[in-house]
């Protein structure tokens, strides 16, 4: 879901860069208040985990791959402030060190994966968790991926004359990868709960 450079027009990527930077600043404030000192290594490790997972592209159709985003996992585990910060760090390192996602497009990619995906997943998880703790993880992950992909499609369509077929392809392919990601996220969340590394109630880490 990483937009490369050369796709977005300046009237699109410049405001998105500002939005991404603003969102990271707001999350940093939230994270500072809520993050327990003892959980800093765990947050770092989860960021590294998401980075590693994103390297593992899996087939979603013949000749088409995708990878998990990890926004749902971070949002469910740590709450919105820490999740946005963590995801933004991953996306920034990918762009600066590995050329995965453009430099001019970095703000757009932060907005899509670290803000839209993460906050959507968090909000949906909050709403569903009391009644359906496991389903909440899966559904919030899928919707997070779809909203992030929708953002990416929107920025592309505001920059170039791409049409409805492009948007449709983005939604269908990301629905498939989102479903895979939901299964992965649920398995990891269950393993984390069982390990006691993160409490079932994520609010304790993100207190």
């Amino acid at each position, binding site marked *: *879901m*990483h*937009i*490369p*450079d*050369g*796709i977005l027009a300046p009237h699109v990527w410049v405001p998105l860069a500002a939005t991404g930077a603003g969102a990271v600043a707001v999350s*940093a404030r939230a*994270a*500072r*208040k809520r*993050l327990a000192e*003892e*959980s*800093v*290594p*765990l*947050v*770092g*490790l989860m*960021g*590294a*985990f998401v980075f*590693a*997972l994103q*390297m*593992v*592209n*899996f*087939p*979603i159709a013949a*000749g*088409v*791959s*995708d*990878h998990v985003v990890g926004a749902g996992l971070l949002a469910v585990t740590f709450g919105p402030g820490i999740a946005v910060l*963590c995801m933004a*760090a991953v996306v920034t*390192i*990918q762009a*600066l*060190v*590995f*050329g995965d996602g*453009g*430099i001019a*497009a970095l703000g757009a990619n932060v907005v899509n994966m670290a803000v839209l995906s993460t906050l959507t997943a968090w909000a949906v998880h909050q709403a569903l968790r009391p009644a359906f703790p496991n389903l909440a993880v899966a559904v919030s992950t899928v919707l997070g991926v779809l909203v992030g992909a929708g953002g990416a499609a929107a920025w592309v369509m505001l920059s*170039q*004359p*791409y*049409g409805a*077929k*492009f948007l449709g*392809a*983005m939604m269908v392919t*990301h629905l*498939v990868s989102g479903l895979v990601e939901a299964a992965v996220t649920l398995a990891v969340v269950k393993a984390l709960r069982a390990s006691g*590394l*993160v*409490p079932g109630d994520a609010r304790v880490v993100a207190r």
Partner: protein
Amino acid sequence: MKLATPRRLILPGLAVAVIAGLLSLLAYPFPDALEDSLESHRPETKAAEEAGPRPSSEGSEGWSAPLPDYSVPGVKSEGLGGALAGILGATGTFLALLLLLHVLKGRGRRGPNG
């Protein structure tokens, strides 16, 4: 409530290293969903073709990624380069987050507006 201490993170850390350094080598080597959608549904108007919605280095001028496409320059073996890049990236992400959060917490201690 027992919070994660570094000792308890050794096994999960090893798992991350295995994913970044080994499992990543099995990645399906085709364009991802966004790249494929961009390529398959490229606008057909002449103006759009001239504008060329192709990935390029435009906007990245003045910056070149040190480990482009998850490879390590100078390491000839694609597998070894990919494994190294994955482990370097995961370790770098871990350390960067540790530093970032440490600085944030440090600032938080100075006072409500610090």
